[in-house]
């Protein structure tokens, strides 16, 4: 009996450090798993953020391109308006009635100004608050509406300039027949 007790104590003494070591090892593995999990989480978040940044950059660049095109279109219409003004002045000097054409020119220039205002109203960058594609989509909807409105205004200004030229045609034909 005494021997048995002694054996038991001996076994306990031998087993205790092993148990403690196993516990420490378990703790270390747990920490490692936790660290790994955190690292994967950060990596996923970083990738998601990079993807969102790329999309944002693309949207911003697209809007900037569209605004550049619109500004080029406005510049073109203004140059056309100047050329028409020059033609009107020459026809007026030739005693051609250009009253209606002049009225239409006033209208055309007003429409060009309206188009310019619409272009200035276009939001050229997605806000920093749009941190997800869903939020960016919502913002892009608004930008798209602004872009479409500006395009319609440019088209309207262009249409009025076409009307001015149409209005000047009979007078021009008359001049050509006389000469």
């Amino acid at each position, binding site marked *: 009996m005494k021997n048995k007790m002694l054996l038991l104590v001996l076994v306990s003494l031998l087993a205790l450090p092993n148990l403690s070591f196993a516990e420490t090892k378990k703790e270390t593995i747990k920490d490692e798993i936790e660290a790994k999990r955190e690292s994967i989480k950060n990596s996923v978040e970083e990738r998601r953020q990079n*993807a969102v940044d*790329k*999309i944002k950059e*693309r*949207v911003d*660049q*697209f809007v*900037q*391109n*569209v605004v*550049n*095109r*619109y500004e*080029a*279109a406005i*510049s*073109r*219409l203004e*140059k*056309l308006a100047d*050329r*028409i003004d*020059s*033609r009107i002045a*020459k026809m007026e000097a030739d005693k051609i009635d250009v009253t209606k054409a002049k009225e239409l020119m006033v209208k055309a220039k007003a429409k060009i100004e309206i188009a310019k205002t619409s272009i200035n109203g276009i939001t050229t960058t997605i806000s920093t608050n749009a941190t997800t*594609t869903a939020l*960016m*989509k919502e913002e*892009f909807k608004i930008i*798209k509406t602004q*872009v*479409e409105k500006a*395009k319609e205004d*440019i*088209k309207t200004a*262009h249409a009025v*300039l*076409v009307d001015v*030229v149409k209005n*000047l*045609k009979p007078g*021009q034909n008359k001049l050509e027949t006389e000469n």
Partner: protein
Amino acid sequence: MDTFNPNQMPPMSATLEKKSMGPLIAVIIILALIIIGGLYFLKTRSSQPIYIPSPANDTITESLNTQSTSDSLNSIEADLNATDLNNLDQGAAAIEATLQ
């Protein structure tokens, strides 16, 4: 005369097990290849630079910036007719697709 000896028969369960493992391994390999292929495709696609025309080489802007200086009605009319305003917002659909 042949007599039936069960010890001479091949072990049925082992053969069946071998047979059923073959297609399973094939399916696993095919699935793994599909997954690897898909991941490769996604990686390649995401690393591809997206072409967005810069103002310097945008043909639409270039064509808008080109016009005659003549004030003859025919010349003005020709330039007005050549003014294409329908494609100014070209690319919006692609952006919307990106945001889907």
